[in-house]
């Protein structure tokens, strides 16, 4: 492994090199979406300026180049997750992927009275799709409660499993608190009772290597834009046998083997779930984004992010009235906090004036915020390109904002 050179990394992210409100931008909204290295941006431009064409079935040169690049991205992703090519479905994002599973596997297999277990930490995208199926098919959703430190109450999980749920759907990492959930344990216990397991990896893929075979989950979903790739593209991994047994979702070109005015038959995997012209450019660029993280190494990225997170967490405690939300032992580079008496929106607004971009609000986990009895949090999250210098600026900015508001 080469040395982790933060300068060389930042050179690849020109967006970071700008002033916001006359201050250097400190971008700490990475859990919402991280920035894209030049390699990814150039990959998109290069596609459009040299080999764009609609893919598959095209007998001409550009169509061939575009198809090869797109399918090559699928292979990169498959290798990265330790999956087979046919198990990698291109979606438009995590939300799209979860809805795909809910509307196909879910509507088919979840029957009246069946139970679905999700965690209290879930993003709306891993909650609402299940509420929709549950309402349609008459299922019951059980919630694994969240303890005060932001970890899941695994004792209750064990009890919920006794009710023999058909599905367990949890995130690997909480977007609001950064909690890393024990998905190994969650999956193996669910497998013991033959429950199907979906893992929402949106917040995990930019921090951890993921081996779906070893995890043994049935579905794994993530978004390109959270792993230094473009918006509008995502991945659904599914075990081959399960994908094969699932009905198709979107109908249209490409997902069919044969069509008459009366009926259609479906194409083989993965195309069965990829109706219409796909997001070719961003699919190719997602492959490039994965090569980017692998070039740095996810372990190296995580070590760097851990240093930033630990430093920032300690120094935040210097701020009077500081209240950290989510203090699990295992966390990614997310710090959610509140300051006594101050509204997150006010703090966020002043941080923005100081050039520091954080997110405030419920982070699309409204039920979690209600369970914790808070209106939302201020959330700072670090990526591979953030620096200790930026941690300093962030801390000073929080202090300044806190002063102005008190």
């Amino acid at each position: 492994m080469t040395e982790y050179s933060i300068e060389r990394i930042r050179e690849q992210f020109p967006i970071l090199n700008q002033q916001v409100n006359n201050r250097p931008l400190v971008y700490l909204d990475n859990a919402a979406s991280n920035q894209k290295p030049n390699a990814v941006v150039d990959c998109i431009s290069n596609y459009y300026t040299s080999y764009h064409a609609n893919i598959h079935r095209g007998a001409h040169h550009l169509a061939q180049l575009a198809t090869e690049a797109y399918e090559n991205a699928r292979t990169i992703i498959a290798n990265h997750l330790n999956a087979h090519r046919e198990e990698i479905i291109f979606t438009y994002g995590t939300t799209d992927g979860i809805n795909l599973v809910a509307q196909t596997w879910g509507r088919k297999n979840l029957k009246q009275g069946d139970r679905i277990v999700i965690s209290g930490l879930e993003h709306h995208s891993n909650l609402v799709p299940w509420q929709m199926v549950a309402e349609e098919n008459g299922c019951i959703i059980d919630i694994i409660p969240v303890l005060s430190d932001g970890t899941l109450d695994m004792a209750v999980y064990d009890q919920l499993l006794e009710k023999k749920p058909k599905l367990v759907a949890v995130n690997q990492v909480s977007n609001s608190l950064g909690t890393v959930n024990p998905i190994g344990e969650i999956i193996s216990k669910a497998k013991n009772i033959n429950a199907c397991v979906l893992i929402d990896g949106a917040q995990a893929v930019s921090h951890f290597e993921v081996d779906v075979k070893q995890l043994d989950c049935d579905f794994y979903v993530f978004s390109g834009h959270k792993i230094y790739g473009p918006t509008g593209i995502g991945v659904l991994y599914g075990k081959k046998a399960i994908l094969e047994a699932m009905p198709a979702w979107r109908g249209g070109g490409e997902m069919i083997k044969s069509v008459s005015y009366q009926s259609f038959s479906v194409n083989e995997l993965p195309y069965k779930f990829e109706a219409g012209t796909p997001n070719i450019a961003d699919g190719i660029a997602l492959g490039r984004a994965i090569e980017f993280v692998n070039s740095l190494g996810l372990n190296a990225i995580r070590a760097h992010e851990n240093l930033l997170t630990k430093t920032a967490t300690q120094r935040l405690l210097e701020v009077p009235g500081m209240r950290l939300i989510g203090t699990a032992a295992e966390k990614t580079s997310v710090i959610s906090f509140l300051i006594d008496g101050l509204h997150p929106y006010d703090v966020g607004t002043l941080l923005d004036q100081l050039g520091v971009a954080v997110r405030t609000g419920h982070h699309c986990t409204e039920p979690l915020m209600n369970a914790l009895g808070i209106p939302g949090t201020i959330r700072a999250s670090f990526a591979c390109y953030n620096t200790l210098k930026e941690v300093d600026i962030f801390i000073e900015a929080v202090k300044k904002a806190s002063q102005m508001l008190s």
Partner: protein
Amino acid sequence: MTIEQRQQEIIEEFALFDDWMQKYEHIIELGKELPVISAEYKTDDNIIKGCQSRVWLHAEMLNSGVVHFTADSDAIITKGMIAMMIRVLSDQAPEDIASADLHFVNEIGLHQHLSPTRSNGLLSMIKQMKFYSLAFQAKNNG
């Protein structure tokens, strides 16, 4: 004073500030000074829910024919912005409120707080103020 004169007054006030910090300190001050909305009006009925901060708004038609607003927010900067909105629009004739162009927000460099993307409830509050005014006006004419 007309709505326009009140806007000018605020613009002049803000012209005194050298930097954003003074400006925000002033807004925070205004927020703190905003008369408390009476508890009976701080109800779920009167809530305007932004994602980021919540706003309560109450409107009543006074005998003098002007609309009187009281409001509150859980966020202090939002509250400061509200204070200015009320200063400009409260106790004015409903038709003037309904047709008011709140250009002062732009001119004091705070238009971002009225962006729909902030979802702090302010934009909806202004819509709601105008809506009340139209309703009162219709009732008057009816």
